[in-house]
């Protein structure tokens, strides 16, 4: 299942990309799994066709999805194709995490709550230590 919120400040396209990446990262979408046609997903979510098509295209460019003749859009990898040197990827992810931690601090979350969130996310994707 993929859920989006129209009330969120995050654009729908970004929510779709993040949702699909999350499902792939958590193993709920495995290699060779077919995604629904753009029309179907757009109709079910009541959003524009182009928004879904753009999200699929972004994940295709990242090397996670591919359009396969006779099958539609398929998950072809669960690890993203690096778009630049390895060190740049790491910097990008670190910057993203730093921004999330800044948000947590400004929102007034205590250290132990942030630690619990981080541990839960690590356990979700990499399993318990």
């Amino acid at each position, binding site marked *: *299942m*993929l*859920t*989006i*919120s*129209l*009330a969120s400040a995050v654009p729908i396209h970004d929510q779709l990309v993040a949702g699909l990446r999350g*499902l792939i990262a958590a193993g709920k*979408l495995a290699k060779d799994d*077919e*995604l*629904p*046609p753009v*029309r*179907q*997903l757009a*109709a*079910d*979510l*009541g*959003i524009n066709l182009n928004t879904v098509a753009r999200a699929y295209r972004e994940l295709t460019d990242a090397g996670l999805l591919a359009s396969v003749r006779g099958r*539609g859009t398929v998950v072809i990898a669960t690890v993203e194709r690096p778009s630049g040197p390895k060190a740049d990827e790491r910097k990008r992810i670190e910057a993203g995490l730093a921004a999330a931690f800044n948000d947590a601090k400004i929102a007034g979350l205590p250290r132990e709550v942030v630690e619990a969130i981080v541990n839960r996310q690590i356990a979700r994707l990499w399993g318990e230590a």
Partner: protein
Amino acid sequence: MQDPLITIGRILMLVFPPFMILVPLVTALLAPQRATEESARARQRGLHLALVAGTMFSLAVWGTFVLLTPRFASAQWAAMWSWPLFFPLWFGLAWPLIRAKSPHWEGAMYGAEAASGAVRTASLVNRERLSPVTRWMWAVALLASVAGVAAIAARGLMPFPLESVGSGDEAAATAQRTQWWIFLGLSLMGPLGLLWLPRVLRAMLREPEPMDAAGSRDLAELYAAQRRRRVLGMFWLNGVAGPLVLGGIFALVTWFPNSGAIWGIIGGVGGTALGITGAVFGFMMTAERAKIAEARARLERSSSASAG
């Protein structure tokens, strides 16, 4: 043999218009009352009165033509063709009344249910892969659509006219040969329709199935069962029954031209029955979608109540 059938045909033609005129009122009366707001009920009362008055008026129009039939031959034709009064009664009054009685019909009709709510959840299953139409069913449809064309085409191998009528042979041959060409062309609609049907069924499989925020399994099952019925019904009606009725009647007229009146009556009754079945099927499918939309709204309410 011919007379009783023609009598039955005439009786059917006589009762068909009042039947069609009464369908909107009866259907609207049978539609369940689900509106709770007083304003909706007030609107219903107005539509209800208008529908009763419109039905009475239409029946009076048909009855007048029937009564005038002994004096004017054209009145019989006018009585028979009063059945299209069904359309203004249905689309103008009955349908708005049904929608007023059950607000979920609106969404079920126009797919608007997908656009409601801030939180939207969708299944990631490719429904185009879930067609309930199997290969043997396609084989049956192919057989049904090709059988009529083959039977009509085979008639072309025989002489025209099929039976000698004496001095009028030349005219009968021309008439039968023209009819044969026309029916051969028309019967090709069966196989041509079959080429189009997979696209139609694929579009039906893609119809919106918005989930509740929690992605309830019960709701998914309701959708799956309804999708199956919808696609299978469309397939059997358009892929098998339609070509069989069309091709069958054309083939019978082509091979037995002297009994054309009987085939005309049987074809008319068969075609009408098929049309009514299609309309009833479409209506039932919309009703089922409305029920699912209602179930989804209930699930949304209960999940937001438990979250609150």
